């Protein structure tokens, strides 16, 4: 049966829209150095295995881990590459957990790395090519290129999110102001996070509502930036963790559930996600991860949440789907400050994906921040003591969901 797994450290590179000073491996190295600096007893040579991932099509490099081997210090080490689109970071973190928990002899300490240097590539083509193959079949079935172009503009992440925003807003009966409030909270939090990208200490709701629409109901001011950045997390066994740091964070539950795609099905068929804000996959993920972690009342037991949400409506929706709040009550929680830095259940105090989005790294920054908050080493540390926290991710066409639940006690029980 599996072993208890602990996170002992996490580190970041600086995030910005153009990290033109560093190449991809140097960027990764910044994160590794920051990660290892927090655990003085661990050196690069003590790492038994590597897992990493990025979103290759955004950067024009296939399996970059191959040529980055030496630059990462992975020469003659076991290395596995995991990529799942937007959830890549989450998936890499989860595979880091599995690599340790599997109990393969000689593999105890695992470094998980996720990175993205979007300024090198063409994000719009990258995003369009997610659905490009599926959309091209529609042309064979009689749809003109003119119309295809319009469909392409809706095939990318923003299109999916806009559909989702409309349904959520109609269900929860909220206005754009409620969305803007989430953005303001995030970007003010980002101002206190050293590695964050969009640091806006003085942002107001009016500022956000003053920007034009990208796609109704989402405005430019509400959309995540495109960042360059990398993140690294160090996983190890329960026994070794105690020697490496004061407060090891135990990973108690993980899940990465896949659902059918939203908006567009495979082969250009329809989508069975009639309501893109329903998110059966997220609920199943929460079920799986919480049952492993022995969390029965998420609202009461979880002290801190990092939720992957490039768009504000998703943050509202996701905290509900992950069981932190009742359905449609999240906007009220943001208004009353429950989710604020000093609140009862702080959410995304790092500024979230809404402020910093180095695509593949983003989904790992959620569990890594959630872990640092428990260790008390987060850069925008919340005043309350955090015992249990979660970090989530979504990717693909709203269909891949990752979740990691962690705590300062090893609670994972095996049947």
């Amino acid at each position: 049966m599996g072993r208890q797994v602990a996170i002992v450290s996490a580190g970041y590179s600086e995030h910005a829209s153009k990290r033109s000073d560093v190449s991809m491996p140097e960027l990764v190295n910044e994160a590794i150095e920051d990660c290892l600096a927090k655990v003085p007893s661990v050196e690069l040579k003590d790492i038994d295995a590597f897992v990493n991932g990025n979103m290759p099509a955004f950067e024009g490099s296939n399996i970059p881990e191959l040529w980055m081997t030496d630059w990462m210090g992975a020469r003659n080490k076991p290395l596995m590459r995991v990529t799942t689109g937007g959830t890549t970071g989450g998936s890499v973190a989860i595979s880091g957990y599995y690599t340790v928990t599997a109990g393969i002899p000689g593999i105890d300490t695992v470094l998980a790395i996720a990175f993205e240097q979007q300024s090198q590539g063409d994000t719009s083509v990258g995003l369009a090519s997610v659905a490009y193959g599926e959309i091209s079949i529609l042309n064979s079935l009689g749809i003109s290129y003119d119309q295809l172009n319009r469909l392409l503009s809706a095939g990318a992440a923003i299109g999916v999110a806009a559909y989702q925003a409309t349904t959520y807003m109609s269900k929860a009966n909220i206005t754009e102001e409620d969305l803007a409030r989430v953005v303001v909270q995030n970007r003010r939090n980002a101002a206190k996070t050293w590695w964050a990208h969009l640091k806006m200490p003085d942002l107001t709701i009016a500022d956000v509502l003053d920007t034009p629409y990208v796609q109704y109901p989402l405005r430019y001011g509400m959309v995540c930036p495109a960042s360059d950045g990398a993140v690294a997390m160090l996983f190890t066994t329960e026994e070794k963790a105690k020697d490496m740091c004061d407060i090891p964070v135990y990973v108690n539950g993980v899940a990465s559930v896949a659902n059918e795609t939203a908006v567009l099905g495979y082969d250009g068929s329809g989508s069975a996600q009639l309501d893109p804000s329903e998110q059966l996959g997220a609920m199943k993920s929460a079920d799986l991860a919480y049952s492993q972690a022995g969390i029965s009342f998420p609202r009461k037991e979880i002290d801190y949440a990092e939720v992957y949400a490039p768009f504000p409506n998703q943050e509202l929706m996701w905290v509900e789907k992950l069981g932190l709040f009742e359905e449609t009550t999240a906007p009220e929680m943001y208004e009353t400050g429950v989710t604020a830095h000093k609140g009862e259940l702080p959410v995304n105090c790092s500024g979230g994906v809404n402020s910093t989005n180095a695509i593949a790294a983003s989904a790992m920054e959620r569990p890594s921040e959630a872990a640092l908050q428990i260790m008390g080493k987060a850069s925008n540390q919340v005043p309350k003591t955090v015992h249990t926290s979660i970090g989530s991710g979504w990717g693909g066409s709203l269909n891949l969901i990752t979740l990691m639940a962690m705590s300062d006690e090893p609670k994972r029980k095996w049947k």
Partner: protein
Amino acid sequence: MSKQTQRKSMDYVKKEYKRTRTMPANWYLSSYEYKFNITHMQPFLKKLKEKKLVANKCSGCNRVFFPPRLVCGKCLVKPDRWVDIRDTARVATYAIAYLKDENSEVQEKPMVLVHHDGADTSSIAELAPGVDVKDTYISMPIKAHWKDNPEGGLMDIEYYDLMDDDAEDLNESK
């Protein structure tokens, strides 16, 4: 998308980084081909010529796929039955795209997901040109507008017309 975002969004605390050299590269998707099996689409395309809609149905879970699907993911089997579908539908959800036309003027274009009555999937489509985007709402009843001479392609339904909504809770849902 992203580059535009930064230009138009609000000021933030920026840091400048040294610019190192760049090495160019390309990814030509034009040297790729995508292969699809569209055998299962044929009955559907044939019926379109008669202005009729058919969908396939999975015997395992009874879900109706419109347009037809190769495989039902829930049961991991090929759907094996065909059912007729009405040409009335509802707006499953919508978004409004802001696209530049030839004169670089921004046009509001509603993009809707259409959920046909009797089907369990939704597909992407357009509303009639005259529809005011501000009036669009979720579960708005619509009806397929056929081309005069259907050719057996997906464009045979040119767009969706609005239907009178006589539901009593109209004002609430709006």
